């Protein structure tokens, strides 16, 4: 081991980090227990506590594990697993005495690190978890290395360490992906977002949260502000005060797909934050959706299981009214109940005057506009007959008050109507090309049935049109805005800007890392294939050409080298002077002549002459090779020779 001391200091630190990372999985008592065990490990590292015996650790483990089993129901299967895993890691460290045990510890910690991603998917948390993974890798290194590598070695190795990144990303992008193989338990956590009930006051609470609900990427530009009604739930039961999802809602027939689809369909990708609910968000009538979603009545969709981590799904919608699915739906949405008597009278009066359902709806909106109604985050409390109190008493309310009153009035006027819960609007970021919808964009509106289709009607638009067009901030008074905490960000623009940038970064993280799925991988593969197909033949042709050229060149050179060129040609090449010989003369004669003209090279030239004669006339190969060698050796001398024309 490189250093026991280092290992025993780093390991408790990592485990402390693990405890904090898995915070959502713990109960207060298990958290206390784990922190205590962690403290013991730290004490051990500082030699204040001896290493525990295996027996003692086993006893502690058995006792605590029994406690976990007894509270299995409270914990839920997944959190139980987390408890057991972390307990084993913590106790293993306390009784660590051999290297093989340390290896097991490192192994378990890798697995726990993987489980951390079940609870956290944001970029910052992912960075933290990968840092913890690096710590664990370091622990593993400490187990097997004897000393730190030298700086020189590190420098040499770092280039190869960088290879890690392409291998890693290549695997991520190209390694085959599978759908979920089997169902695993999810962690139990409180649901966020819209609940299954709307009371006066619930949405007001929700809009005080600035947290992201979901983000949307549109394939062809976003729809207009007034069309961004994200449907999540329909509330069809009303007890005079509270609207709720009908208990038999999921058993009902699905809405019929529209007979003729309007041309303007929208394709978009939703990246939803964990809500621990199954409902998902869609615009208008969904026409197509990803495989992990399933259709519900009333044109709604839901996920296969509660959304416990950030997910993304692809949708295609038509922005048209949802069709009615069956008679039960009409029946449920016509029930007025035995309450709110004053509004009943008012609805009767309206119905008597207005000729059509649309006219009734318009009359109700007109009423809101003309009378003194207020749009506020802090409406006064309402009583048992909440609609009566609102319409004829307080006249101040938030979207749910207006939706609730409108839906009830429509029903009392004989028109089937329901309250729809979801989100309205969102912030569009043109540079990043996405729509950010937060919890504060939570909204409630109404749908009423005319001619077999549910027409949306937003009474809030009548009382506060800015809400629809500019978002919540535009519709609220300064005091209300302060309540939402906007004042703080208004004062610190730099901080707000930074927050926004981080949010954009988080968006790209969601789209490219978290949202990378099989479809995208298939798309990547097909683009690689397309690239390959397009460039395959040119590349092959180029390679072939290169191959043929180089082979030909090589063969030619080889041939040149091995071909015994004519000796006379060589002679000519080596002794340029011979080119000026008289045509009638033979080479021998010319050489003799040359020798006569250059007495200091006569011996050499006569030798050449002799060798030439032997090789040509006696076909002496040895003489030929000797001659070639000689010509090569005396290249420079021979090149300088000049033959003057013979006068004779």
């Amino acid at each position, binding site marked *: 081991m490189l250093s026991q001391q280092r290992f025993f200091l780093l390991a408790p630190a990592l485990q402390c980090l693990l405890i904090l990372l898995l915070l959502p999985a713990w109960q207060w008592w298990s958290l206390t227990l784990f922190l205590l065990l962690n403290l013991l490990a730290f004490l051990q590292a500082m030699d204040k506590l001896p290493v525990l015996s295996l027996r003692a650790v086993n006893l502690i483990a058995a006792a605590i594990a029994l406690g976990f089993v007894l509270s299995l129901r409270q914990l839920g299967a997944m959190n139980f697993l987390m408890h057991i895993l972390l307990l084993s890691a913590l106790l293993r460290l306390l009784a660590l005495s051999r290297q093989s045990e340390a290896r097991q510890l490192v192994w378990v910690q890798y697995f726990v690190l993987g489980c951390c991603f079940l609870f956290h998917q944001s970029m910052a948390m992912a960075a933290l978890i990968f840092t913890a993974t690096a710590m664990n890798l370091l622990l593993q290194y400490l187990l097997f290395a*004897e000393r730190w590598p*030298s700086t020189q070695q590190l420098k040499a190795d770092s280039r190869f360490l960088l290879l890690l990144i392409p291998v890693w990303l290549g695997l991520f992008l190209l390694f085959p992906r599978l759908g979920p193989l089997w*169902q695993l338990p999810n962690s139990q956590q409180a649901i966020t977002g819209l609940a299954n009930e709307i009371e006066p006051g619930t949405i007001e609470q929700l809009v005080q949260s600035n947290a992201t609900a979901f983000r949307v990427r549109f394939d062809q530009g976003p729809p207009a502000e007034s069309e961004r009604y994200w449907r999540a739930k329909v509330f069809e039961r009303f007890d005079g005060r509270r609207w709720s999802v009908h208990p038999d809602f999921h058993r009902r027939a699905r809405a019929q797909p529209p007979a003729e689809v309007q041309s303007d369909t929208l394709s978009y990708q939703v990246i939803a934050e964990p809500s621990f609910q199954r409902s998902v968000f869609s615009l208008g009538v969904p026409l197509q959706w990803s495989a992990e979603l399933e259709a519900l009545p009333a044109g709604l969709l839901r996920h296969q299981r509660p959304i416990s981590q950030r997910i993304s799904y692809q949708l295609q919608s038509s922005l048209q009214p949802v069709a009615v699915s069956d008679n039960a739906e009409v029946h449920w949405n016509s029930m007025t109940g035995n309450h709110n008597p004053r509004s009943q009278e008012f609805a009767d009066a309206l119905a008597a005057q207005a000729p059509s359902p649309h006219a009734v709806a318009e009359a109700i909106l007109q009423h809101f506009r003309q009378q003194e109604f207020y749009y506020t985050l802090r409406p006064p409390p309402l009583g048992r007959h909440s609609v009566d109190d609102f319409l004829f008493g307080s006249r101040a309310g938030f979207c749910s008050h207006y939706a609730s009153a409108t839906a009830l009035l429509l029903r009392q006027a004989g028109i089937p109507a329901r309250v729809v819960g979801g989100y309205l609007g969102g912030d569009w970021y043109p540079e990043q090309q996405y729509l950010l919808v937060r919890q504060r964009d939570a909204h409630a509106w109404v749908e009423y049935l005319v001619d077999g289709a549910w027409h949306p009607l937003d009474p809030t638009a009548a009382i506060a049109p800015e809400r629809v067009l500019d978002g919540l901030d535009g519709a609220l008074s300064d005091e209300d805005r302060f309540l939402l905490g906007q004042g703080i960000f208004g004062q610190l623009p730099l901080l707000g800007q930074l927050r926004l940038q981080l949010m954009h970064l988080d968006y790209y993280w969601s789209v490219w890392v978290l949202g990378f799925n099989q479809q995208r991988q298939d798309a990547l593969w097909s683009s690689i294939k397309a690239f390959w197909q397009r460039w395959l033949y040119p590349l092959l042709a180029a390679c072939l050409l290169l191959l043929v050229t180089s082979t030909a060149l090589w063969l030619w050179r080889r041939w040149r080298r091995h071909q015994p060129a004519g000796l006379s040609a060589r002679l000519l090449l080596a002794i340029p002077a011979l080119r000026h010989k008289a045509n009638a003369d033979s080479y021998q004669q010319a050489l003799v002549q040359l020798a006569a003209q250059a007495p200091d090279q006569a011996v050499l030239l006569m030798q050449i002459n002799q060798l030439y004669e032997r090789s040509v006339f006696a076909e002496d190969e040895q003489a030929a090779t000797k001659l070639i060698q000689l010509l090569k050796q005396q290249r420079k001398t021979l090149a300088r020779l000049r033959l003057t024309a013979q006068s004779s």
Partner: protein
Amino acid sequence: MALLRRYRQQVQRLMQRWLAKKFNSASSFQLNHATLLVFPTRYGFWFVLLIVLLYLLGTNYQNNLILLLGYLLLSVFVLSIWFAWRNLAGLRIELQPPDPVHAGESLQLNLRLSTRHGFQALKLSSHNNSIVLSNQPQAALRWTEPKRGHYQTGVLTIASDYPLGLIRCWSYLPAGLSYWVYPAPLPPQQQAHGAAQTEDQQQQLASSLPEQLKNYQPGDPIKRLHWKRLARQPDHPVIRVAEQSFRADPRWLEVPPLHGAALEQCLSEVCYQLLALESKGQPYGLRTPKDQLEPALGPLHLQQCLQRLALC
């Protein structure tokens, strides 16, 4: 299991033959891609299992980050193959044959290691000992040989789990270095060998070693009869005693044709005497049952004498 072990032994034998072919010099080795072997350790296989588990977890929860972690570990695994190899690649090992020692003393096989870059956590082991090295240029493998003789070093294994214990990189060095283990010197009981032993000792010796007995011949002194044994077994009643013809010449040391413990005892004593004579500067000769060395002096002569003793 037995089958597996036999299979393993066979593989090892094949491996050694193969290695012997690979290394032509037996005292200097250079580790390279032709001689290094690389394979995942058991922990490496556990690590792969971890990656599979993470893949399943990530797939079932459709969680890309878990998959990302799994792929990170996979690429770490793949890269650690290279790092494990590189740790030993290019390492040159020179071995020096161990100096001769007397039986029971510590033998030392000196190694010189040189490499262009450092190496780490290198475990060098022979059949009976191992050392862990990190970047030392020199090291020594020590062990003791309890019996005299002329030995050859066996196959040395050089292995490393560096950097993460996932991959084991190793090689065998079939270093056939010979070394001598001389008998351990023991001061003789009396000045000369042969009659040196007392009658008691002889009797003791004889009772444990029946080959020290011979048939009675006329002229054998009565003192040499093994009386206790004679009562039980009448054959070979006389205790054999080495011939004492050399006694006259003190320069000659003689090893009589003995066996077993008696021989060892005798060799140890002769060894002691050799060393004593050498240090006193008196010439000495050695007579063994096989051959003899004429009296001489000097370290070379001493070495030759000791080697004779080791091989007796």
